[in-house]
């Protein structure tokens, strides 16, 4: 390649990068004051949020919090309640009236596996390629690409029954990517999978995001939210509790360290002492949790204890989540 050609190519890259910067960050998803009830059950109550382009946005919440309901409302699978000022816009389209336009720009990975068990891996993808209107030649090429991307090429002729849970999930993701979606919706993408597959999926999702795909996911793995999401929305009983960048939320709302003390009977003396300090405490069954920004004060407190009765660590998203949503179980959990 001549030097001139090379320069030209680099310029194009710079220009493209600039262009990306200058495009205003329009919201791919814009949800305003949305409600959904099933009879007496209020699944979603006045939820609003925005998801900018190329963002990974995570819904966090206990089972029955309204995560899946909200997700389903985005692609027209569930219809929001009629409510004066509520609205949903996905790429500017309203899912209540323009489900086809939205679905042609989206890929959906469901919580439950719904592959066609009678067909092999390739045919499963072939069938869906027709739903997206791909010609057979385009479909063949795209399927090869996706099998390669999700590391399933070896399994292309396997029957669905022969696949492991992780392979099925990867195939579901591949299926959702057939139409090169601009918005990928995933409902608990790694629930029940082993750490290897989970990390593989996270890695792939990060690559998709870098390539410009907007990602919306629900999870109750805090680690997943922390690893992937630029922004999280913690919901409980259909209402927004907190929204923001996971790291920032953690810094803002949680102490940095926690000391978990078990075997409380043997440490009753200890509890008396702690009560006098400014360390924040929380009790859950027979565990005492002590939070502080200063690790030394926790170390000091722990000195009295038998090492097998305590565990000291950094706080994480799960602590924040439990702080916000409480530790008790609700009826619908």
């Amino acid at each position, binding site marked *: 390649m001549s030097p001139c050609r090379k320069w030209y190519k680099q310029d194009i890259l710079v220009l493209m990068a600039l262009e990306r910067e200058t495009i205003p960050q*329009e919201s791919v998803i814009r949800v305003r004051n949305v409600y959904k009830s099933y009879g007496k059950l209020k699944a979603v109550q006045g939820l609003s949020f925005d998801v900018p382009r190329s963002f990974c946005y995570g819904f966090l919440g206990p089972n029955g919090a309204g995560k899946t309901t909200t997700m389903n409302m985005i692609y027209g699978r569930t219809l929001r309640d009629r409510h004066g000022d509520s609205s949903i816009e996905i790429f500017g389209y309203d899912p209540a009236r323009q489900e*086809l336009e939205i679905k042609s720009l989206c890929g959906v990975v469901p919580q439950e596996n719904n592959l066609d068990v009678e067909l092999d891996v390739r045919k499963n993808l072939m069938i869906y390629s027709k*739903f997206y209107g791909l010609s057979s030649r385009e479909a063949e090429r795209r399927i090869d690409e996706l099998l390669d991307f999700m590391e399933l090429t070896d399994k292309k002729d396997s029957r669905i029954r022969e696949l492991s849970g992780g392979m099925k999930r990867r195939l579901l993701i591949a299926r959702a990517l057939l139409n090169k979606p601009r918005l990928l919706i995933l409902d608990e993408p790694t629930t029940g999978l082993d750490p290897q597959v989970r990390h593989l999926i996270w890695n792939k999702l990060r690559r998709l995001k870098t390539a410009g795909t907007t990602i919306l996911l629900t999870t109750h793995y805090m680690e997943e939210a922390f690893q992937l999401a630029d922004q999280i929305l913690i919901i409980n009983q259909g209402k927004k509790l907190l929204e923001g960048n996971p790291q920032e939320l953690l810094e803002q709302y949680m102490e940095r360290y926690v000391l978990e003390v078990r075997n409380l009977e043997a440490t009753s003396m200890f509890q008396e002492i702690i009560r006098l300090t400014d360390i924040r405490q929380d009790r859950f069954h027979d565990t005492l949790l002590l939070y502080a920004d200063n690790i030394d004060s926790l170390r000091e407190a722990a000195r009295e204890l038998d090492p097998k009765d305590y565990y000291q660590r950094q706080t994480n998203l799960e602590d924040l989540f439990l702080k916000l949503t409480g530790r008790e179980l609700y009826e619908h959990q």
Partner: protein
Amino acid sequence: MNTSRNMSALGLQGKAPPLYRRLYSVWYRHMRVYTKNLITNGFPPFLEPLIFLAAIGVGLGRFITDMSGLAYLPFLGSGLLVTAAMFTAAFECSYGTFIRLEFDKAYDGMISAPITVGNLFVGEILWCGTKGFFFTFAVLSVMSAFGVLSFMGCILAPIVGSLTGALFASLSLLVTSFIKDINQFNFYFTGFISPMFFFSGVVFSLDNLSPALQRMSEILPLTHAVRLVRAVCFHDWDPLQLLDLAYMIAVIFISGFFAVRRLRKKLIS
């Protein structure tokens, strides 16, 4: 307008495939699943008429010389052309649909793609029309191989089979929309489909029934399919056949309309 502003900024426009391609894609899905087991799925349509021919036709038929001016074997054989289409469509859109809806969750995936619930079930009815065509064709092949019916004489019968398939597809979809437990289909088959087989003029002529029963059999959709297919096979046309045709088409549209409406509520909450 908000929509155009957003789209221009993102440079994105959602474009779903046109209606005919969406319907074709649903049809294609069913065709692919059906032909996956071509031997096990494709064999019974040829075997069943053979069994009927041997048991009823040759066994019972020996005692019957004439049925409404026809020899018994062609009478029965022509009726079986459409009952095969009826059974396959009724099973496909009852047990088959229910399993896809409740157990396999196949529809969940399909309507995440750019397909509406209406497209989904219209595509399914079209697929059953195709199956009806194929099953009638299979019965016709057997019947003509044994000299019961003339293949060329009945060449249009598969079209009636296709219509019959679509009819029982949309009727069965409507039934499925009411079903809560898969065992409830027993009522549909023992209470409706099986009696219809006997009271629609397939195995015996309706002329000898009491007027009350005759009138009742006019309500049964299969009666009209049988009359139409006999007209097609024996070139015995009567303007009344237009009413048969109209009745079948009306049932397809009316039950199809309500089936889609009710099933939509099951899929979209």
